[in-house]
């Protein structure tokens, strides 16, 4: 069998398997998210589609900074009050707890940990990011109010690091979420993380930390990349 024939054969087989996948009724919707009928208090029957009824399905909007002295003042306030979401995504999160100890003390830089994405404006992606965690990270990132910033901690977020050939982790975080500051190293010491905060503050004060708007502007591109790697996409496209 010649090489060309072999290629044709392989292509044919691939097309067949793709058709099979499309035909098979394979969904990843959890039982509680399935479309169902419920009885309202007045006795009428309503059809509920949780994925689209319980979440806002609006695209993110670009919210341009107002500019001028007001924006400068607000950027100063944003830079001096960085609230970090307490969500350790990988092994690098072990470097975050030392920051609240007397030795490093991040509070003097105006950095605090918050328990909820609603109140945070900075997200530390700490180290490797598995595909499973990426899904949660996207949901969480989109729940944070704009303006929001991402610090990517460790080499794994830049090029995959020591997990570059792993089947379950992503290599370049920048493809899936917009990153403001990279902190290189494996693992970076807490001092490096503090330096990352200082760098982020400089960027915010200079008005250059507008990645949330970039995410909104290139929303389709980011979503296509995310869906390429997350096979079991069972959530709305935009998770408020």
């Amino acid at each position, binding site marked *: 069998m010649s090489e060309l024939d072999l290629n044709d054969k392989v292509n044919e087989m691939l097309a067949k398997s793709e058709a099979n996948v499309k035909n098979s009724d394979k969904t990843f919707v959890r039982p509680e998210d399935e479309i169902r009928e419920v009885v309202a208090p007045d006795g009428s029957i309503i059809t509920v589609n949780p994925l689209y009824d319980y979440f806002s399905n609006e695209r993110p909007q670009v919210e341009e900074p107002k500019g001028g002295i007001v924006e400068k003042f607000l950027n100063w306030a944003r830079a001096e009050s960085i609230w970090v979401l307490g969500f350790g995504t990988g092994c690098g999160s072990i470097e975050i707890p030392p920051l609240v100890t007397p030795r490093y003390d991040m509070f003097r830089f105006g950095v605090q940990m918050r*328990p909820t994405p609603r109140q945070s404006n900075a997200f530390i992606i700490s180290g490797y990011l598995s595909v499973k965690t990426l899904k949660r990270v996207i949901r969480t990132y989109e729940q944070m109010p704009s303006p929001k910033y991402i610090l990517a901690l460790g080499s794994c977020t830049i090029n995959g690091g020591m997990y570059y050939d792993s089947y379950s982790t992503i290599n370049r975080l920048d493809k899936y979420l917009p990153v403001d500051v990279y902190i290189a190293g494996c693992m970076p010491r807490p001092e490096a993380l503090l330096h990352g905060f200082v760098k982020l503050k400089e960027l915010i004060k200079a008005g250059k930390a507008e990645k949330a708007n970039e995410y909104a502007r290139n929303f389709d591109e980011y979503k296509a990349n995310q869906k390429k790697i997350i096979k079991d996409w069972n959530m709305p496209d935009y998770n408020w």
Partner: protein
Amino acid sequence: MSIYAKLGFTFLGLMIVLNWGMLMGATMRKIGARMAGRYGIPFKQPWINLFKNMSTRTTITHGVMYYIGPVFRLSGAVGLFLFMPAVFTGSENGLWTNFSFEGDLILILYFQLFGMLGMALGAGQGGHPYSAMGIARGLAQHAAVELPLTLAFLSIAIQYDTFSVYKIVEAQQGGMMNWVLFTNPFAAVTAILAMLGAMGHSPFNLVKAPNEILIGPATEYEGTYLGFMQSSGAILHVMEAILFMNLIFGGATNWIELIVKTFLIYFWSVFVGMVFPRFKIEQSVTWFFKIPLVLGVLAIIIYSF
């Protein structure tokens, strides 16, 4: 004094109380940090946080009551200020007595609960699966705090035969030995112990501890509404301290005295918080029913006969 001048002075007093509350909060966090061997937050941090929260570009809605919750809390805090004489000036219609009137003690007790009710209403609308449990815990502890607190206040009211905070302050003038702390020690100790719960610091801060799952509605608030809650929290802390200062520690005759006394009263709850770890709700409710409640009943019995 005309009503406009009175409104102006009340507004000015509210601004002083708000800023003093924020500065006091920052100072206490700084003291806590120094105890832990850290440098701590800058003194200006609460104002920066407030500006930052006011400047978020996106907000998320969960319905009308979700937004009214923080407004309720803020109006509770402002209401507490409006009807409480802040500084004793020797005249019932003085500069800083605000809109104090006969029987304002009852209204103040009600306003204390107002913020908590606002949060409960917001929790209902927030849709947070744990908020119902969080609010149930909060209200359970608040009820346990309110009972001894009300008994102590009633005892003081019976002692001076009035429900007017201004008259209670007036009766305590003329030396330290006239303070309720010395004339009615049972009521004073009851109120001082119950105050720990009213201030909501450790060991009684399970309801609003930031890393508890059952924090409830507060996790859902962000942006301007969180700013509302921060400013109302600052006012509430000072107003609680002013309430205890007026009822137990002889009130204040000028703003400097008010600042020193409220600082020490607030420091008492922070000091206890630094020393003791957090209670579970059943432990704190049991504690309030065991010690302050018994003392409160004693205080009532002594002054009823």
